[in-house]
């Protein structure tokens, strides 16, 4: 589980992953719309949001704004 350690210090968790500086920044201060449109599987992304306490309406609002309504991503990695 990454939820509590992540909330305490995202940098410590992110150091374990091979991500770019931009990806690290968007994950540290989660930019759900950017992460969604850059190909994170939506199942993983929304559960990551839930795991760190983000409400679904807030999440959906951001991905909808970034991707446009009806422009769904079906899940291929």
């Amino acid at each position, binding site marked *: 589980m990454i*939820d509590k350690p992540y909330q305490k210090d995202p940098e410590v968790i992110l150091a374990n992953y091979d991500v770019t500086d931009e990806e690290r920044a968007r994950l540290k201060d989660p930019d759900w719309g950017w992460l*969604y449109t850059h190909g994170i*599987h939506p199942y993983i992304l929304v559960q990551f949001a839930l795991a760190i306490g983000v409400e679904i309406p807030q999440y959906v609002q951001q991905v909808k704004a970034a991707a446009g309504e009806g422009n769904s991503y079906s899940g291929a990695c």
Partner: protein
Amino acid sequence: MANIVAAMSSVHSPLMMSAPQMADEATWGRINTGFDTLRDTFTSAGADTIVVISDEHFNALDPRRYPSFGVVTAETSVGPVENWLGIPCNSISVRFEPELAEAVLDEGVRQGFDLTRIGEVGLDYGFLTCLNFLTPRWDMSYLWLIQNCVLPPLPSLKRCYDFGRMVGQAIRSWDSSRRVALLGTGGLSHAVGTPDMGKVDPQFDKKFLNLLCQQDPAMFDITDAEIDAVGNGTHEIRNWIAVAGAVEGARGEVVMYEEGTMVVGFGMMQFQL
């Protein structure tokens, strides 16, 4: 030999556990009445083992190693693995049925299914949610069969039906006195993590339920594009179709359907055995 004494399916929206307040009182009552009906069916049939057919949502399985069809062979497991389901992580323990798992693996290979053995897995909401209502004391033995409904390319609907048929044959060939209930979970129309999250398509759901209950082969003609159009989570109808395959020939009945609560087209059905 073991018998299949009940076969049913239900949506597994995790919000039933994490945010039940999203349903109004009347809807929540209908959801619980639906679970009561399903529970009465397998209880009155004397079921002592529940075979769950569901996908896993990358909480315990790594997307880099995700099987098309997986059989959990562990003796026990704990869950939930999620911290957001409304109950403490790993607060539920279940006893699996590894002997039946091996029987499914053997029959699968015999019939040309190259199944993946999953010897260790935590329990995510795909497995847990419905059972939390149906067997809240967790006093049955269980088997978890995992179908890939989440990571394209997905097995075809017909392949999932055939998988279920094979599972049914494996159960009936199992040298055991067990009385087995089958439970498919997931679907119906819904989107997970996409901008469409919250949208459902009752017309699609009703068409699918009608085909499923009639065991109409036209259900295999539903394309992945049609399913995608009503939400990526809708691919979980594969789990319902597998249950239909396990009881090939049996007709089904819709137990309940709500047009969109808990971000899904909310339905339950059971087959008449």
